[in-house]
Every structure is written in structure tokens, then in C-alpha cells.
């Protein structure tokens, strides 16, 4: 057992966990943040993507103990009260989800991608950057559309919020 502590979505949290506890399980089971999903056992689907110290990572492939001391952002940390984050709003607007299982991981990957490409995104880049996120429903088309739209919207002036969220 180890003591772990992080700042999750801006709030300091600490707890005790077995050393083998994966970050995704700590988030879901100890903190009740069930927005982060587990879709595979092979580190390939991206449903579990969260940001650790500002970088998108697969929380199913990292121990909670490895992340101790870090700042973690999950899907629950993006919206500002009832105001959706621009990427969430774009997924809604462009019908970027069907069953919604992959969506939290898609959105966490998208916000990271947008913040790493302040110069803007094109379709080929978005598709390449989505290599690690699998969707069984949409065929990706509307996800790509949503991310391109969000990237445009965010470079038009909501930059501050995007940075803060990433």
C-alpha cells in the first residue's frame, strides 16, 4: 500500500492504494470519476485518456503511484459549470458521438491535440493524431469534423479557456 496524492481537476486529493492500482481504477473507484472509461486490455483504445501534468496519457497503462504528485485532468474537469468546453460543444454540435463510450477519451485527446497545434489543424493531422483512440460507432468522420471545428473556434478567441483546460 502507498499513500498517493494528486491535484485532480484543480482539487487536491489524497488516499491510500495498493501499489498495483492503475490510475484509471483510482479515478473511477476511489474518486468516483467514472467519466474515464476502460475499453480494452491492450493499451490501444484510448477510452481512458486523461491529462497528467498537461500531457494526454492512457490511465489504464499507468499506476496511480506513478502519477502521485502530479496534476491530473479528467473529462469531468473540462466544463465550466454548465458551460461546455468548446471541444465538448463541438462534439455535440457535429454529432461526434453515438454510444458515447469512446467520447471522454476522444475529447481528452482532442484538447491535448489542439493545444499542441496552436497553428491550427488539418484533417490529415487530426486523423493521424487519433491513432490511439478507437470508436466502434461513428466511423470517425464526425469526430474529425468536431475537432476541426473546435480548433477553429478556440483559435478565434477562447484560447485562454483551452489552455486552462489542457
Amino acid at each position, binding site marked *: 500500500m*502507498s499513500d498517493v496524492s494528486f491535484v485532480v481537476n484543480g482539487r487536491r486529493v489524497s488516499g491510500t492504494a*495498493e*501499489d*498495483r492500482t*492503475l490510475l484509471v481504477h483510482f479515478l473511477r473507484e476511489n474518486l468516483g470519476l467514472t467519466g474515464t472509461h476502460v475499453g480494452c*486490455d*491492450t*493499451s*490501444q483504445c*484510448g477510452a481512458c*485518456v486523461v491529462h497528467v501534468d498537461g*500531457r*494526454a*496519457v*492512457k490511465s*489504464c*497503462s*499507468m*499506476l496511480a*503511484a*506513478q502519477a502521485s504528485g502530479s496534476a491530473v485532468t479528467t473529462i469531468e474537469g473540462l466544463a465550466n459549470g454548465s458551460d461546455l468546453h468548446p471541444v465538448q460543444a463541438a462534439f455535440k454540435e457535429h454529432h461526434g458521438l453515438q454510444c458515447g463510450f469512446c467520447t471522454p477519451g476522444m475529447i481528452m*485527446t482532442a484538447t*491535448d*491535440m489542439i493545444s499542441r497545434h496552436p497553428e491550427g489543424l488539418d484533417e490529415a493531422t487530426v486523423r493521424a*493524431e487519433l*491513432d*490511439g*483512440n478507437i470508436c466502434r460507432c461513428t466511423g470517425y468522420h464526425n469526430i474529425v469534423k468536431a475537432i476541426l471545428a473546435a480548433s477553429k473556434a478556440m483559435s478565434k478567441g477562447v484560447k485562454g479557456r483551452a489552455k486552462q483546460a489542457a
Partner: protein
Amino acid sequence: MYAVNYHRAASVADAAKLVKSGDAKLLSGGMTLIPAMKTRLAAPSDLVDLSRISDLQGIKVSGKTVTIGAATTHYDVASDEKLRKACPALAHLASLIGDPAVRHKGTIGGSIANNDPAADYPAALLALGATIVTNKREISADKFFKGLFETALKDGEIITAVTFTAPAKAAYEKFRNPASRYAIVGVFVTKGKDGVSAAVTGAGEDGVFRSKEIEVALAKNFTAAALDGVKVPAKGLMSDIHASSDYRANLITVMARRAVAAANA
């Protein structure tokens, strides 16, 4: 995953001490080791996390000499401005590994210690004639990569850095498995003071190797056209559900041709 004791090492010396306990394993990005522990293919008693040791981080370029700390992530290698000038081929290679989330965690030291026969870095280090620096000694790349998942590392030996001289020309071309994103065939070519080299990953039954046929042709004439008609033997190449050994043999020439064209561009 079986129970494990996690330790965060403060320094290389600290890690060297910690890794002696029980059946301990070093942990870097965890992009290979954690999935292997989840499926119980690996079951160390202890994990010694190297990722917060500052001595193992970062990229130094001085003149033509490049040194990369073992715990430097694929993302940091891909986006380092100095490296993109000194050896753009290596930065490009790092940008092709896995996906963004894998690149944010996975490290060069973990990748070469693992020596997966389809991993990308081994081809680069072998072709660049790199030196692998450990807490005990320096090992040249051609002595370091021994076979499938096998290296010259002794138990508990810690890679601290890799270093090489940037060649005049280099490029990497990879034919990826679309599902796993590892190389079905990847070829890294270089041309420098010591001649040319062409190292192949993804294809060899014994892991990464240098292709004599490609090198002989390129030594005469470092152009894509010089590889027209060059045949790489299928003997000793892997055959699996993704590609037969004949197909891989053909792909080696195709990837080498593209790599040379990119190196000359």
C-alpha cells in the same frame, strides 16, 4: 496484475540499489512493462521508477555529437528543436512510434532495453553506430542488440543515455502494422564519413540487423535508383499472419528506396 511494490528512485545510484531487492524491475515509461504486468506476462516483485530522475532526462547537441537521456520520452525526442536540426531522421522516427499518448510516456531507454524485434529505435541506433551508456560501461549498438527481446544488459544494469555522431544524411521509412502501429518493416539509412549503413527492424527472426545487400548497392551510389533490382534474401526473415518472409524481403528494398530518397531530399 499481481501485487507489486513501487519505488520512486531519486538518482541513478538510488535506482541501482533498489533494483537489487527481490525480483525487481526498472520502470521507465511503462508503455511495455505495465501492459505486460496487466496480462501477467511479467510479474516483478518490485518496480523501480526511473522517470523522475533528472539526470536521465533531456537532449544535448554539441557540434555533431548528440546525447539523449534514457528517460527522455518519444514526444520530447520528436519535438526537440536542436535534434530536429542535427538529426531530423531520428526526431521523425520518434514521431512515428505508437500514438500521441504512448509517445508522451514511452522512453528511448525503455524501448532499447526491451529490444522488441518490431521496435523503431533499434534500427536507428544500429545504423547510426550509436553508443549505449549504462551506469557500468559503454556498449556499441552492434554489440548491444543481441536477439529477440535480448540485449547485452546485465541484471540490474541501467541505461543512462545514448550518444552518436549525427551523419551528413539519414532517413527512416516505416511500413506500419495498422493495428499495433509497430513496424512490419522499418529501414533506417545513413551516409556519413564512415560510409553508408542500412538497418532493418520488424523483419529479422533475430531482431534488428544491417542489410548487406542494401549497403553494398548504396556504397557505390547513394540513390534510390541504385536499389533497382537489388534482392534481399527471405531466409532469416519473420513470417506471420501480417506478412510472409518473401513479402518482408521485398518491403525492405521498397522502404530502403524511400528512405534514401528522403535522405537525399
